[in-house]
């Protein structure tokens, strides 16, 4: 049964935080409210998707409005021409928090910490930014030294070592008051385990400065390791003024437009209400990419591919993420804009390479792509906005993968002649013509992408050959087949909504709250935990029950999953595994350790470090339906032309198909170009496929073996292996 979580507020994030005392109203099911609206704000475009209960999808794309992106959100909604009263859920992905971190434009923030430890936020983990560039600094801490204040107190592993000194507290609070800040973070040593001093500091601040946002580490992230906890807490405080102001504006505009109160995508891949977002903004830093991974995972699963690597290639960056058995993978080790955030986040890896990445020749004579990007202005040479340097997009244009003369949004027209000129100049330095240079640019760019995809698979103990590649974003479909070949994967999926998949992910997302509690030093004998009732057992159950109580207070009838962070005694990295009892957890831990790191040590003691609870209220999971438009096997009306495209095996006369004129069962055989709204797919030689029931173009290589259903040999390239005889 589909819930309608947009109807009421869902207070507080982490357990223990103070939330509004108002009871959650029971959602009332209004039959006419059947639409789920997802709006994703990107750097250039705002994407809008609605999905109804029958799985019908409507999409729109409008320019983003960077000054106040809530204007673009509403403009996007209006572009759909839907009726606001029909919207049951409005979910939103925002880069406001991300950009505030990247551009260091958060609120003016102070920090209060333990005397003697003022600079932890600056020293970090002591490592330098670059091994060999000795002039490079680490990204500046969010709180400069003159806004860091200390109180005389000290907690240790067993509790109070130095009692909280009231006069030093009064001094610190006054110093904060004079500093004229918008937010304060409080992080004291061992505050995660013994929060009494932190709470006392928080009370004093809230009393003296009621208008200032206060973030306590024991509420934001009650987890050991002081630097990461402090960094996360400081980010939380730093982002609150910006994100809450933005969400205030958005809520007002939404109400005006007759839309429900917006839900906001968290980095974890689940949405939370705007109140939580305003209060715990650090949880929303990867709001944007999370929607894409959720959308890709959802569509791939409907198409029958639970194991996929998502590949979202845009203009300046590319996001890749693994999805295993239909589950989006999570991490708590993310660093965003130089700020460690130890909060649950979709395990997405970003490389700064995209369509706009500039190709160049270095002083060793090698062809390089990126990390410099032509951005939106002047953009690729082929945009005709004055860009002179060749980009990946220019290479795709020269090779015929992108159409000459195509109109982009905002009156831009793609010009192959300009792209060719830029690539010819590059080719001169390499002794190649423009076309060879373009092939080279695409191959070098692909190599970087393959490295990223290997990283998020191999490093997690996953074999990329067992995974299908889901391509989306403007340029994803152009590169996907080549990447799959390099990875040894036999399947590429291009969802119908490839250009707006993040918004699709928002529309179908679940409501999610994460809870965490430390249980450090719980040594768990792994041979027979039942024998040792003093350890683990009872404490765990009580801890989980406490978290479940907090979850029930936050959400309306949530489903919950119990998890814990475990490690071998003395290790400094934990693995998060599901389970309720010590025995279950330890068993799951050994198995996960073996899967990820290739070995398990059964006779080694295991420690439980934290227990976690994930509470969710499911979103909608409508089946998507692709209409029948054509006789299968007949490209028919979908063919909009032919053009010569160049691949590494030479020029080919390729069919150009219009995806919007294709339907269920429509087939395509490489070499072909399929033009989607806002994205393009290149079907390389040896690839073929068809549109499936849910509208995904499923491409397979060779005999059509599909990744995920069987292993394949690594691809053997065009080069003759007998060449080695000469060596």
């Amino acid at each position: 049964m589909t819930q309608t979580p947009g109807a009421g507020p869902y207070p507080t994030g982490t357990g223990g935080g103070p939330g509004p005392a108002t009871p959650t109203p029971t959602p009332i099911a209004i039959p006419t409210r059947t639409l789920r609206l997802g709006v994703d704000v990107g750097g250039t475009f705002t994407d809008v998707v609605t999905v109804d209960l029958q799985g019908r999808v409507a999409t729109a794309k409008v320019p983003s409005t960077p000054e106040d992106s809530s204007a673009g959100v509403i403009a996007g909604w209006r572009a759909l021409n839907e009726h606001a009263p029909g919207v049951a859920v409005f979910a939103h992905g925002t880069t406001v928090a991300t950009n505030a971190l990247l551009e260091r434009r958060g609120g003016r923030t102070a920090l209060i910490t333990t005397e003697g430890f003022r600079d932890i936020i600056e020293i970090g983990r002591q490592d330098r930014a670059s091994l060999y560039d000795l002039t490079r600094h680490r990204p500046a801490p969010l709180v400069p030294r003159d806004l860091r204040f200390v109180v005389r107190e000290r907690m240790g592993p067993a509790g109070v070592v130095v009692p909280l000194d009231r006069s030093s507290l009064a001094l610190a609070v006054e110093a904060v008051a004079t500093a004229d800040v918008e937010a304060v973070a409080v992080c004291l040593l061992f505050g995660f385990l013994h929060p009494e001093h932190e709470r006392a500091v928080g009370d004093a601040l809230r009393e003296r400065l009621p208008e200032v946002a206060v973030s306590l580490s024991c509420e934001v992230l009650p987890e050991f390791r002081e630097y990461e906890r402090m960094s996360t807490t400081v980010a939380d405080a730093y982002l609150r003024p910006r994100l809450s102001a933005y969400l205030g504006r958005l809520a007002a505009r939404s109400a005006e437009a007759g839309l429900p109160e917006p839900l906001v995508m968290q980095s974890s891949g689940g949405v939370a209400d705007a109140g939580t977002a305003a209060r715990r903004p650090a949880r929303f830093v990867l709001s944007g990419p999370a929607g894409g991974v959720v959308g890709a995972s959802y569509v791939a699963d409907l198409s029958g591919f639970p194991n996929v690597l998502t590949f979202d290639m845009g203009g300046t960056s590319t996001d890749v993420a693994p999805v295993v058995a239909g589950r989006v993978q999570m991490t708590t080790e993310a660093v965003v804009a130089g700020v460690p955030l130890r909060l649950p986040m979709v395990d997405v890896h970003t490389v700064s390479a995209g369509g706009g990445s500039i190709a160049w020749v270095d002083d060793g004579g090698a062809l390089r792509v990126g990390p410099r990007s032509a951005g939106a202005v002047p953009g690729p040479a082929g945009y005709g906005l004055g860009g002179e340097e060749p980009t990946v997009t220019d290479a795709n244009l020269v090779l015929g993968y992108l159409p000459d003369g195509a109109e982009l949004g905002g009156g831009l027209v793609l010009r192959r002649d300009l792209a060719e000129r830029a690539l010819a100049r590059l080719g001169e330095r390499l002794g190649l013509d423009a076309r060879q240079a373009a092939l080279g640019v695409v191959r070098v760019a692909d190599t970087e992408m393959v490295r990223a995809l290997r990283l998020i698979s191999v490093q997690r103990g996953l074999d990329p050959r067992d995974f299908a590649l889901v391509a989306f974003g403007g340029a994803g479909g152009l590169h996907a087949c080549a990447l799959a070949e390099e990875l040894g994967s036999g399947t590429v999926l291009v969802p119908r909504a490839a250009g707006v998949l993040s918004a699709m992910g928002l529309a179908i997302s679940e409501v999610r709250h994460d809870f965490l509690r430390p249980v450090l030093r719980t040594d768990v004998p792994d041979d027979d935990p039942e024998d040792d009732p003093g350890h683990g057992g009872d404490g765990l159950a009580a801890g989980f029950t406490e978290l479940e109580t907090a979850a029930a207070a936050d959400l309306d009838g949530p489903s919950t999953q119990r998890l814990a962070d475990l490690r071998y005694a003395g290790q400094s990295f934990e693995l998060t595994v599901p389970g309720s009892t010590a025995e279950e957890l330890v068993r799951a831990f050994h198995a996960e350790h073996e899967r990820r790191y290739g070995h398990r040590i059964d006779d080694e003691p295991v420690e439980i470090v934290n227990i976690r609870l994930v509470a969710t209220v499911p979103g909608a999971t409508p089946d998507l339906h692709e209409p029948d438009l054509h006789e299968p096997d007949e490209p028919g009306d979908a063919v909009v032309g032919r053009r010569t495209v160049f691949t590494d095996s030479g020029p080919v006369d390729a069919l150009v198909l219009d995806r919007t004129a294709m339907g269920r069962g429509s087939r395509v055989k490489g070499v072909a170009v399929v033009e989607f709204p806002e994205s393009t797919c290149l079907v390389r030689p040896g690839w073929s496929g068809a549109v499936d029931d849910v509208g995904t173009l499923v491409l397979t290589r060779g005999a059509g073996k599909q990744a995920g259903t069987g292993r394949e040999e690594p691809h053997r390239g065009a080069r003759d292996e007998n060449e080695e005889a000469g060596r």
Partner: protein
Amino acid sequence: MILDPITLSVLRSALAGIAEEMGTVLVRAAYSSNIKERRDCSAALFDAAGRMVAQAEHIPVHLGAMPESVAAVIARDPRPGDIWILNDPYTGGTHLPDITLVSPVDINGEIVGYGVTRAHHSDVGGMSPGSMPAGSRDLWQEGLIIPPVRLTDDVLALVCANSRTPRLRRGDFRAQVSANRVAQLRMTQLVARWSLATVLDGFDEVLAYAERRTREALRQLRDGVYRAATELEGDGVTDDDIPIEVAVTIDGDSARMDFTGTSPAVAGNVNCPLAVTRSACYFALRVLLPEDVPACAGTYAPLTIDAPEGSLVNARPPHAVVAGNVETSQRVADAVLAALSQVADVPAAGEGTMNNTVIGGRGWTYYETVAGGQGASSTGDGPSGVHVGMTNTLNTPIEALELEYPMRVERYELVEGSGGTGVHRGGDGIIRSIRVLEDATVNLLTDRRRHAPPGLAGGGPGAVGRNLLARFSTESAGDGAEEELPPKVARRLRAGDVVTVVTPGGGGWGGRT
């Protein structure tokens, strides 16, 4: 050029990817925090002739040290399927805790290369827990010496039995073996994708490419001989300064670093096998190069190193060497950078020491290096509170430390104003105070306690570091008065005593305006 520039780029990236993946597997699968958290390890891919074609170095001190390991193995007739192990500083190693595993990579039974991993194992026996004794006088006191031998189950059992932490060793070796396997797996795939001939051409081309990049950078420098001298503050036996001298010759697109004039090897443990000196020289060279130049044999081909045999920087057996790797390497790198500063735009001297702190008691050993100030440069202030030179390991979180050991950290802050003055200020050092809650011993291996890191272009020197001991315990009738300790020292501690390490600031850049 045999390969077109595009194939070259693609192969270069693929080879770097293999080394990277090996390093990743090693760090992720390792058991001990020294490898897993502090990343005191490296991985590399070599060709059949023993030339390094790609390296994933996590700390610079491993930069130049692996070719000797591979050469030592090649000399012993390795066969496909072998795994070789070694740590002998005089036969392919650096210091005993750094254990190297070398695995031949074969295609159809023919050895085409080697996968190599090196990791700092936190205990390999010897006279003190942690195998970083301040007072060792010969190699045998520093731990188990492993000449290049095949790693069999029996050898593994022998090595682990000689460590105070055999379980950790076993886990870490497993991780190294897994990482070495990646080399075989990925090379097989690469050959299947490109053909053996192309991959082998790729090796040559990648080396030639890196060499071109280095030569291009050296060509930008004015020819000449540039000299610099520095000193090491004692060897743990005496506190006398030990001179280090270098003459760097730039000649067209090649360079020579000559250490004639440097002290003979000393009685204490600050001696360097040649591999350590080479790492320090490579580091200084890398500082001159654009960051994207790949790390491989070609990168260093234009460089010749002359280190007199039997000197501090090319010691012979059985000299003790454990601190050569962690302290002398810093001074060597600083000397070379000081010489290069006369001809290239490099930063002023950084703190120039790792401030090695080893505290141990009954059944526990804690090892940490403490960061300090980086030197300022023509482009800006020096970063504060960072590792400089040959290391870049992470700290142990205070909360993790206190949960693990009977110690309390009382202070961990920047020392404001400890960086040198100048148009651009040197980075600030750190003060770190630790109280022991049980009786224990402390070993400090530090430097720059008497001789400050100099400034550059008129900038002032960074503040010197200090080692302090405050006695608080009733047994020692302590009143908290602080005693100044020498740069290299071992002391017994009573419960309640506080050890404070103040690290040096970086040198400033540019005359006062």
